[in-house]
C-alpha cells in the first residue's frame, strides 16, 4: 500500500485518485498514450487523406483502452510494485481485447466506466459475478460518478479550448492575423476555412484535452473504487489488524525469549543500536562554541606584568607612565562630564517617574487639557457664577487648577486619581499654591458632592486670589 487507506467521503476519494495520478503523472500519461498507439496507427490514413473528423471520432472511441493502461499502472503502483515498460507492453493486448464487445460497444457510453472498469480489470470478473459485484460496490451511491461524468464532458471541451487559446498565445503575429481573419469570416456567417496549422492546432488541443481529462477521471474513478471497497470491506481495519498481529507476535516472541533465559543480548543490542542511530541524527549534534574575550584584568596583566613589557629596558617605565596617565585623563574627563551635566541626573533622580508618564488629560471625568479651558479662567468663572451656574463656575476653577498642576506645576496627577489623591499629591509636591488649592478643593467638593453652595464672597475671593499663572513656577 503506497497510499493511506481510510474511509473517506466520496469527494475526498476523488481527490485521492487525482493525487494518485499526480504522483507519477509522466508514467501514467505515457501508459495512456501507449494504449492509444494501436488506434493512432490504424487511423492515421484517415488523417493523411483529410478526414480529421473521423480520425477524432475513432480516437475518442478507443479511449477506454488507454484508460485501462493508465488504470493498470495506477493500481499496480498503489499496491507497491511499479510496472516497467515491459509490463506495459505485455498488458497492451489484454487492454485492447478484454471484453471488447461489452466495454467498447455495449457499455461504451456508460458513465459508471471509471468504477466498473476496475471490477473487470483488477478483479477479472465476468457475467453475473461482475454485475453482482458492481451492484454491491454501487451500494454507496453513484452520485459522485454521475457528477464526475458530467464534469468529464464539460471539462474535456473546456480544456481543449484552453489549450487552443494557449496555442494562439504562442503564435506568431502573421499566423494570428490569418487565424483571426478566418474566425471573423466564420462569425459573420461564412464557412470556417482554417489554414492547415489551425486545423492541426484544434485537433491537437482536442486530443490533449481528451487524454488529460480521461486520465484524471480514470484516477478519480479508481479512488472511488478503493474508497468503496474500504467502506464495504474494511480494508483499513484489515491492514491495521495485520500490523497489530505482527506486533503482538513480536512481543510474544520477545517475552518467550526472555523466559527461556537466553541472554537477551540481541534485543538489548538492538535498542542500543537504535539509540545510537537516533543520537546520530543532526538534531542531536552537540554544538560547542568557544568565545574569546579580553577582560580588563587580563589586559592589565598583559600590559604591565608581561615579561615583554618588563624587558623593554629603560623605556619600559615611560610606556607605563603614558598608559597610566592616559587612564587618569580618561577618568578625569568622565568625572568632569558627570559634574558638568549633573542637572540631567538630578532632574531624572528627583522627579523620576512623573515627567516620563503621559500627562493626564481627563481627571475624575473632567477635561483638564489646556486647550479645553478658556484663556481667562477667573473671568469666565465669575461670569458663570453671577449668571447662577455655580457648578460650572467652580468646575472651571477646579479644572483650571488641576490643569495648571499637571502642566506648569509638574505634579504627577494620574487619570485615575480622586480629589483627595490630587490634594495629597499637591501637598507632597510642596508648592506655594498648596493652601489655595486646599481651600478650592474643599469648596468644590462641598458643591459637587453635598450640593452646598458657597457664598458670593468666597467665590469672589477665590477668583481674586487665583495664583496660577502661565509660564512655570513663579
Amino acid at each position: 500500500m503506497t497510499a493511506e487507506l481510510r474511509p473517506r467521503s466520496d469527494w475526498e476519494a476523488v481527490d485521492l485518485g487525482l493525487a494518485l495520478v499526480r504522483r507519477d503523472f509522466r508514467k501514467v500519461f505515457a501508459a495512456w498514450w501507449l494504449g492509444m498507439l494501436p488506434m493512432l496507427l490504424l487511423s492515421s490514413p484517415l488523417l493523411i487523406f483529410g478526414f480529421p473528423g473521423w480520425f477524432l471520432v475513432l480516437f475518442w472511441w478507443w479511449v477506454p483502452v488507454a484508460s485501462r493502461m493508465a488504470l493498470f499502472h495506477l493500481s499496480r503502483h498503489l499496491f507497491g510494485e511499479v510496472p516497467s515498460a515491459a509490463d506495459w507492453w505485455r498488458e497492451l493486448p489484454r487492454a485492447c481485447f478484454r471484453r471488447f464487445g461489452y466495454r467498447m460497444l455495449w457499455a461504451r457510453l456508460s458513465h459508471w466506466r471509471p468504477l466498473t472498469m476496475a471490477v473487470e480489470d483488477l478483479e477479472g470478473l465476468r457475467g453475473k459475478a461482475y454485475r453482482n459485484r458492481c451492484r454491491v460496490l454501487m451500494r454507496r451511491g453513484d452520485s459522485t460518478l454521475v457528477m464526475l461524468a458530467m464534469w468529464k464532458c464539460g471539462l474535456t471541451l473546456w480544456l481543449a479550448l484552453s489549450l487552443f487559446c494557449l496555442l494562439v498565445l504562442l503564435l506568431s503575429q502573421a499566423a494570428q492575423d490569418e487565424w483571426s481573419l478566418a474566425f471573423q469570416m466564420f462569425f459573420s456567417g461564412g464557412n470556417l476555412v482554417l489554414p492547415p496549422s489551425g486545423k492541426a492546432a484544434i485537433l491537437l488541443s482536442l486530443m490533449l484535452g481528451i487524454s488529460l481529462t480521461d486520465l484524471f477521471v480514470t484516477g478519480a474513478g479508481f479512488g472511488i473504487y478503493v474508497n468503496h471497497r474500504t467502506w464495504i470491506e474494511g480494508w483499513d481495519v484489515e491492514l491495521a489488524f495485520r500490523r497489530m498481529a505482527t506486533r503482538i507476535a513480536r512481543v510474544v516472541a520477545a517475552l518467550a525469549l526472555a523466559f527461556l533465559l537466553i541472554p537477551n543480548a540481541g534485543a538489548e543490542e538492538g535498542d542500543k543500536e537504535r539509540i545510537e542511530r537516533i543520537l546520530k541524527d543532526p538534531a542531536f549534534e552537540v554544538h560547542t562554541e568557544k568565545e574569546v574575550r579580553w577582560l580588563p584584568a587580563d589586559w592589565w596583566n598583559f600590559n604591565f606584568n608581561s615579561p615583554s613589557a618588563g624587558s623593554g629596558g629603560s623605556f619600559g617605565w615611560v610606556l607605563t607612565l603614558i598608559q597610566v596617565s592616559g587612564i587618569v585623563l580618561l577618568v578625569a574627563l568622565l568625572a568632569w562630564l558627570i559634574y558638568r551635566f549633573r542637572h540631567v541626573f538630578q532632574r531624572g533622580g528627583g522627579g523620576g517617574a512623573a515627567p516620563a508618564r503621559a500627562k493626564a488629560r481627563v481627571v475624575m471625568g473632567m477635561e483638564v487639557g489646556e486647550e479645553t479651558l478658556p484663556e481667562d479662567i477667573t473671568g469666565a468663572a465669575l461670569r458663570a457664577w453671577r449668571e447662577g451656574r455655580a457648578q460650572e463656575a467652580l468646575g472651571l476653577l477646579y479644572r483650571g487648577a488641576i490643569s495648571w498642576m499637571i502642566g506648569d506645576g509638574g505634579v504627577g496627577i494620574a487619570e485615575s486619581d480622586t480629589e483627595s489623591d490630587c490634594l495629597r499629591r499637591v501637598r507632597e509636591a510642596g508648592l506655594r499654591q498648596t493652601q489655595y488649592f486646599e481651600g478650592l478643593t474643599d469648596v468644590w467638593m462641598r458643591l459637587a458632592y453635598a450640593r452646598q453652595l458657597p457664598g458670593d464672597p468666597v467665590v469672589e475671593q477665590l477668583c481674586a486670589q487665583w495664583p496660577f499663572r502661565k509660564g512655570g513656577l513663579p
Partner: protein
Amino acid sequence: MSGDVERKLDTLQAIELAEGVEVRLRIAGPILRGGALLLDVLIQWLLIGALTLLFALTVGWVAGGQMSWGVVQLLWFFFSWWYPVFFEAGKWGATPGKKVFGLRVVQVSGSPITFGQAILRNFLRVADGMPFMIGYGVAGLIPTFGIGLATMLATSRFQRLGDLAARTVVIYDRVPAEPLAPSPPALESIPPGVALRPEEIRAVGAFRDRAGLWSEGRRIEIGDHARELTGSAGSAGVTRLMGIARWLQERK
C-alpha cells in the same frame, strides 16, 4: 525515523501544533472547487444583472446613458474583484458558492485567512484564469482557468497560483455523516491480553462501528487477522473482538 519510510500518499494534511497536538486538514480538490466557482460566477452575474436593471431604470432615467454605463462598470469592477475578498476574509471564510459546497479557505496552518491573504489569492485569479479566450463582440476576455487547474493538479495540496502566493488552502469544512452500521452489542466486556496502541484501539473501534456494513464471512475474515489478540478464530473470534471493543469503550 519516518523519513526512512516513503511517505504514504494521503488527502489529509497533518499539521503539528504545540504540545504534540495534530490537526488534520481535509484538503479539497479541484472538482468541487470548480463547482463552487461556477456557482459564484452565476451569483455574480445575477447580482450585476439585477443591479444594472435597477440603475438603468433610476440613474439612467435621470442622468442619461453615459452616467449609468459608468455606474455599471463600477459595479462590474466591484463584484468581480471584491466579492470573493469580502466573503473569504469574513466570518464564513468562503464565498457563497464555496459555502454551498461545504468548502472553506484557511491558511496552510489551518487558521482563518487574513484580509491581506484574501486580497492576494483573489487578485491572482487573473493569473490563474489564463489563458484567456479572445472573444468577439461583447464577450471580451473570458478566463479559461487552464493555468489554475494545471497548478492545482500539480501541487500536493491542490493549490492554485493564488493559493501558493497567499499560503492558503481550501478544505472541506462540512463532511456528510457516513452511515455507521454497528452490529449487535457485545454481551460481555473482555479486557485485551496485551496493551494496545492508540491506532490499534482505533482499529478495534472501527471494527465494532462498521461491522454491520460487512457480510458475515467478511467479518470473520477480518476478525481472523486479529487472532493474535483474541486467541480464537471464526465467529468466536469476532465475538471476543466485540467484547474487547466494549471493554475499551467502557474504560474511556
